[in-house]
């Protein structure tokens, strides 16, 4: 699929040429160098992948090309050429003629990049009215055709809807149709699938490749996801700390990477064939936690509430049964809204439920029965360490809370225990004096993990703990978790949307969809042809990274 359509013969003027371009931001604490001496060319009909982690400067490059820079941006005299014409000496009104008509953009999250108070039709047709001078009637007809090309079944109906009346995938199709509407020379894709569900993301990717074949558009495709870029791009540039460290065709970069950073990045991409997990407990090992027929109903209302504003309740989880054995790691996989986090909340004692949860030799039938002993034995680590660590407490206080609460060690030994915990998560013991904002994202997540293990739990629930981290950091956090599990023998319920990652860690995997448990299987059986169809669809949507598959 990748590289299927390369029209440019290399002699033509490239659609986009960036040469010797540097950019820094003036801040009160000195300049921040966002881009350093960037050289990048997008040939006609080519898709150029720009891969980098957060803070690498990849978005700054997009803003520079679209001439959408903040006031504190300072540029050098490098070149930014669109089909040979300099973008840098254009006036604002000339730039406004170029944006949307000659360069357009597809954004990361369609739920925030579409105006919630405007119908989708108006948001699509306004670019046609602005740049092609159509009347609103003509523009709407044209919009309908544009939307039909993106695979929307009832485009006319979709045009009349507001963003909140469309699914994430439908909204992103509208955004893509808008970007393609004026047949621009270049489209900048900024992580267009990151905010979408696995299967939706796969469909959007297929749509991209299909439109690429039909229109032979030139594209700059920005992403942090190497595996994904390998499936759409002809040429790849890897950017790190504002510098392009490696550039070449997809095959070159992925199969014979030269730069160390690229190699590290490729190595960090989860590969389901690379087992990282701990030794599986024997089949006769007793169940540590077993949830039976757990149902959660959201939106229950009081009598008066029902009278005034009746809202349908909805089932966050419906008759879900999950078992975790001592020392086992069970993966819980599903898309957003599948109910996997609801189950995480139920099992960590944060959400009321019907059904039963058996832990050890005790039974719990509702939230109010969950007691201190249970809460100590079952700890949870959340997705966003920024939100789950108190910004005003030092790491020392954060880690001493569970030690005090559950009286894990005598007060005199607490300082020593905190130092040990930090070492266990491979952070220097001096970090005890730091505040959360003085730590990086990965370091914060390590503190959150240390806090969970401080209570000496028997079961740790990890709710998307790697989802907000960069690939390389994600790999080290996963590895750290495996080490802790090996040392402590703690069981783990690992909730994630990343199938490739969970297949490296979990002994058994549960799949949820629309609040129901669809499938539970042992990792060896993942690719058996008689797997549940939904599991098969999920697996198909996330093929292993190109280099490793080759």
């Amino acid at each position, binding site marked *: 699929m990748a590289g299927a359509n390369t029209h440019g013969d290399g002699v033509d003027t490239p659609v986009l040429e960036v040469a010797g371009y540097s950019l820094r931001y003036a801040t009160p604490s000195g300049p921040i160098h966002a881009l350093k001496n960037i050289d990048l060319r997008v040939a006609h009909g080519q898709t150029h992948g720009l891969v980098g982690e957060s803070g690498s400067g990849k978005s700054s490059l997009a803003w520079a090309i*679209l001439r*959408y820079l903040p006031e504190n941006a300072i540029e050098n005299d490098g070149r930014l050429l669109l089909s040979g014409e300099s973008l840098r000496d254009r006036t604002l009104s000339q*730039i*406004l*003629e*170029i*944006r*949307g*008509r000659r360069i*357009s*953009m597809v*954004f990361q*999250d369609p739920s*925030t*990049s*579409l*105006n*919630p*108070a*405007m119908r989708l039709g108006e948001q699509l047709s*306004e*670019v046609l009215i*602005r*740049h092609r001078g159509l009347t609103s009637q003509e523009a709407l007809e044209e919009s309908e055709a544009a939307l039909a090309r993106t695979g929307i079944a009832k485009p006319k109906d979709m045009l009349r809807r*507001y963003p*909140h009346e469309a699914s994430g995938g439908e909204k992103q199709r509208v*955004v893509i149709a*808008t970007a393609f509407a004026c047949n621009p020379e270049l489209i900048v894709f900024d992580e267009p699938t990151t905010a979408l569900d696995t299967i939706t993301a796969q469909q959007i990717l297929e749509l991209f490749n299909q439109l690429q074949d039909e229109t032979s558009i030139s594209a700059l495709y920005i992403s942090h996801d190497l595996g994904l870029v390998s499936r759409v791009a002809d040429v790849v540039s890897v950017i790190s700390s504002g510098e392009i460290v490696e550039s070449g065709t997809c095959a070159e970069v992925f199969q014979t990477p030269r730069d160390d950073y690229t190699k590290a990045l490729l190595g960090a991409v989860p590969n389901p064939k690379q087992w990282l997990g701990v030794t599986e407990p024997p089949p006769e090992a007793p169940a540590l936690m077993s949830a039976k027929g757990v149902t959660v109903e959201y939106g229950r209302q009081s009598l008066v509430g029902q*009278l*005034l*504003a009746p809202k349908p309740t909805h089932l966050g989880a419906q008759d879900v049964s999950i078992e975790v054995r001592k020392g086992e790691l069970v993966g819980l996989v599903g898309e957003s809204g599948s109910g996997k986090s609801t189950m995480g909340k139920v099992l960590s004692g944060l959400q009321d439920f019907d059904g039963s949860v058996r832990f050890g030799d005790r039974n719990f039938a509702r939230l109010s029965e969950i007691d201190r002993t249970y809460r100590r034995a079952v700890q949870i680590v959340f997705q966003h360490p920024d939100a789950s660590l108190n910004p005003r407490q030092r790491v020392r206080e954060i880690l001493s809370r569970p030690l005090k609460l559950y009286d894990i060690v005598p007060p005199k030994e607490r300082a020593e225990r905190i130092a040990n915990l930090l070492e266990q998560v491979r952070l220097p013991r001096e970090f005890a004096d730091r505040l959360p904002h003085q730590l990086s994202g990965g370091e914060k997540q390590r503190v959150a993990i240390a806090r969970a293990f401080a209570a000496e739990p028997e079961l740790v629930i990890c709710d998307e703990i790697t989802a907000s981290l960069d690939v390389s950091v994600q790999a080290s956090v996963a590895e750290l978790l495996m080490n802790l599990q090996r040392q402590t023998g703690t069981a783990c319920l690992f909730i994630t949307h990343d199938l490739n990652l969970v297949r490296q860690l979990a002994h058994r995997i549960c799949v949820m969809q629309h609040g129901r448990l669809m499938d539970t299987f042992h990792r060896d059986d993942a690719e058996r042809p008689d797997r549940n169809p939904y599991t098969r669809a999920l697996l198909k949507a996330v093929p292993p990274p190109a280099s490793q598959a080759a």
Partner: protein
Amino acid sequence: MTLGYLVRRLLAVILVLFVVTFAVFAITMILPGNAAVMILGEYGTDEAVAALESRLGLNRPWYIQYLDWIGGILQGDLGQSLRLSLPVADVVGDAFWNSASLAVTALVSVTVIAIPLGVLAAIKRGTVADLVIGMFSYIGASMPEFVTATLLLIFLAGPALGLFPAGGFVSLGESVGGFSSHVVLPAATLGLILTAHISRQVRSEMSEVLSSDYIRAARLKGLRERRVIRRHALPNSLAPAVAVISLDIGYLLGGIIVVEEIFAWPGLGRLLIYALENRDLPVIQAITLVLATVYALSNLLSDIVIAILDPRVRYA
């Protein structure tokens, strides 16, 4: 807008008004002495009080009295004023229209001035215009009505300029010019704080909207700034402002009592003070009920406007 949404909001308003009538009626039960004692004054003999009680029906159980009172209200009969010997409906009705003309003038001018000011401050964020509007807002918001009123009277109605009459009232029916010159100072007094409040609200909403992803997306589509502001940003920042305006109506209803007294405006506020001083219970009840109804209905209206501005609300 869905009909169901409207019906649900209307039901909620009716429920609120029902609770209000109950509270207002309870005042008669809580106050020391009943209407009979009030009418006859401290010299009424026990026999005379008892006779009047039975004539007014005050010796019946409270729920019968309540139902009787509610029944009257539903038929437009608010009872008889104890001091003015006139039907309450007539007294309160006249005062209501006088107050309404003042309140509506104040509210309309506030809305027309405050929203553009807020938008301007947000667009020109960090410039002199923003600073001036911000300072005006702080000063406006921190001055109570009696200070504003005094300053306005000294400067604009004082002997030096004498632009406007210092007080009094001419109804719209009598003379439009007369009404206008009399309404300026009380409306300005009422409006100053609200203008400050609403323009600040609009500024902060607008600033937030302007930094949102969808505004960036609109700009990167190459749309002209005018369309970005008017079509993309404004509707999204107005919905919260409308909610604030409807809350401010509650403030306005309180402020009007002070302002009417200062400017001798014969509205509900002055009537309420008169009724309180003279313990004219039926009038107090009627005015309280009217003010509560106005507040509830203006909230309903703002909910409808918000639903028009923000399509997500309609289905909530």
